[in-house]
């Protein structure tokens, strides 16, 4: 395998859940890759399919009756096609996962050490005492003070940050090549968030693993991600290096995300602009570009044509799924980044304003 070959390549992944109300298209044909030793940030609102996509990587949606199609190539093996048994040998071993709420993610009745020992022994044929030594070592590695004593604590005796450290320790038990972290800092205090992110970066440097970090928080992306994929309604609408996502984003949804977060260097009087409307139903998503009902720049034909993820001109690693011309997008962003409103930016560029959102839920009127 050549060194340029990505560690994980997801190709046209679709995940659907049949429900009583209809089929939920949780993940609607996404393609992305993760390179060794690098961090991919997947960003999007709740319900954009980012969690389902990563759970599917580990086959954790199988039990929920999900229909999965597409390919998930990990070191050349297609995880979608693997048997449960083969996949189990990869879970927690080559690919490990850290979840959002560390308290509910740890078993309340078992000591932290026992849960770490279990993770080690799930994949290595080592004695209980050796696994325990490893557990102490892991707790030390993630910065838990006095690990040889704390190893016998129960999860409820840990603080929130320590629990997430313990979760990370558990994920690292078998030195995975890929760590998937699903909103690892969302349930934590801000200061603890920063510690956990710093820990993950340090561990990545020391262990050389690739990380996929799933978040709704662009601040987290700015902190740790090398590459970014922006998800909306089960699709990836933009991928680029983290630098480019902040300096030259090209998708109106990404603009919306960037405009809705406060930063210290923007003047206080400049208002934060929330993205209007709500995420669409994944049972009956809007036609054409899924974002068009909420997009201030949508043109009439955007509700008909489905955009593809295409390279941005002159930026081969920057892909955007937007029906606006690249040149128009760049002119719009140039206006927005200096603080103009979407309406002003449109006027400057010479495009008509999209009709106001009539159905804020984006459920019904979208198709009309």
């Amino acid at each position: 395998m050549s060194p340029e070959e990505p560690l994980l390549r997801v190709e046209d992944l679709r995940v659907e859940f049949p429900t009583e109300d209809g089929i939920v298209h949780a993940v609607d044909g996404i393609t992305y890759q993760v390179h060794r030793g690098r961090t991919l940030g997947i960003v999007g609102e709740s319900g954009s399919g980012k969690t389902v996509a990563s759970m599917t990587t580990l086959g954790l949606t199988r039990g929920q009756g999900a229909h999965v199609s597409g390919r998930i190539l990990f070191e050349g093996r297609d995880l979608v096609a693997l048997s449960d048994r083969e996949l189990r040998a990869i879970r927690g071993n080559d690919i490990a996962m850290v979840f959002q709420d560390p308290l509910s993610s740890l078993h309340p009745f078992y000591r932290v050490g026992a849960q770490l020992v279990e993770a080690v022994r799930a994949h290595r044929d080592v004695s209980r005492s050796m696994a325990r030594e490893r557990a102490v070592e892991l707790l030390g590695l993630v910065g838990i003070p006095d690990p040889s004593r704390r190893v016998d604590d129960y999860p409820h005796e840990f603080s929130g940050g320590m629990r997430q450290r313990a979760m990370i320790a558990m994920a690292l038990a078998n030195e995975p090549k890929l760590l998937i972290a699903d909103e690892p800092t969302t349930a934590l205090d801000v200061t603890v968030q920063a510690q956990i992110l710093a820990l993950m970066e340090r561990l990545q440097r020391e262990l050389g693993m690739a990380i996929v970090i799933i978040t709704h928080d662009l601040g987290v992306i700015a902190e740790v991600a090398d590459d970014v994929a922006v998800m909306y309604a089960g699709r990836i609408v933009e991928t680029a290096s983290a630098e480019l996502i902040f300096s030259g984003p090209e998708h109106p949804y990404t603009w919306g995300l960037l405009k809705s977060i406060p930063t210290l260097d923007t003047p206080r009087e400049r208002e934060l602009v929330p993205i209007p409307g709500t995420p669409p139903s994944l049972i009956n998503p809007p036609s054409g570009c899924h974002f068009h009902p909420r997009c201030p720049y949508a043109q009439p034909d955007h509700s008909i044509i489905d955009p593809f993820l295409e390279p941005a001109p002159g930026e081969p690693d920057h892909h955007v799924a937007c029906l606006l011309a690249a040149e128009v997008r760049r002119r719009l962003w140039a206006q927005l980044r200096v603080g103009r409103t979407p309406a002003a930016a449109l006027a400057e560029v010479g495009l008509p304003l999209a009709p106001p959102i009539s159905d804020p839920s984006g459920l019904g009127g979208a198709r009309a």
Partner: protein
Amino acid sequence: MTRYIIRRLLWGVLLLIIVSALLFVFFRILPTGDPAALRAGRLQNPKVIAAIRADLGLNKPLITQFWIYMKNLFLHFDLGYSYYSSASVKSLIFDRLPATISLVLGGAVIWVFSGLAVGIVSALRPRSRLDRGSMGGALVLVSAPEYWLGLILLYAFAADIGQIRIFPGANSYVGLTTDPVKWFTSLILPWLVLAAGNAAIYARLIRGSLIEVMGQDYIRTARAKGLSETRVVLRHGVRSAINPILTILALDIGVLLGSAVLVETVFDIPGIGRLNYDAITHADFPVVQGTVLVSALFIIVANILVDIAYAYLDPRVRYS
């Protein structure tokens, strides 16, 4: 923890005293037959009855009777003597205990294992045909009264009156120490009857509990570790789901030790419930008091055990 246990034990004793007092009040106030007259049997002349009354201390003021009763009970553990057979109530109860304990504990083993097995399998495939079938069957078993089910089984399988004579019928109980094999075979049908309804309830309980637990985040974590599904279900799922069931189990056993009267009557097993039932029909106050007190004791002890067990089963529970 030790202080907690001591406090719980003291509360238990207080509760027993209250129950004893209530029992005394109920049996003296509620209209029943005159024990002295009952004891006199065919010698129903006033002189004999008065003599018996004096003998039993029934002519003393109520408050004195109460004092004597409580003093005997709590200082000498003396439950008095049966009006009917003159035997000591304590010995009557101790004679009957092994049969009841055999019946209840054996039944509990059957209903716990069968109930849990069915419930766990159902929980893992909710709304499957298997799940619907076993939960429907559970509903039937829960609804079947023990005396009815007992008679049906006797009619079907009892050695004396059955259609297929494979199990000993009613009144075949022998003590474990007398003949272990006969003890076992004679209890098979009673165990099944006692277990049937409870197994159904336990199957439904564990099913509901486990379905909820299997949706927890820590189950997802266990799967993400790469554990086998069996291990995920048993070590992570059932371990959590079983806690509330163990609590109920202890209470059920405590209650049944005093009140397995239906099964004991249908199968004519000489147990506590049967003793209580007979004593009631004979207005045999001391025996009724004794059996009710023993039942209360079992329930109180079961409650204390549950509370203590909880601290061990769930490390988040801490008693100060």
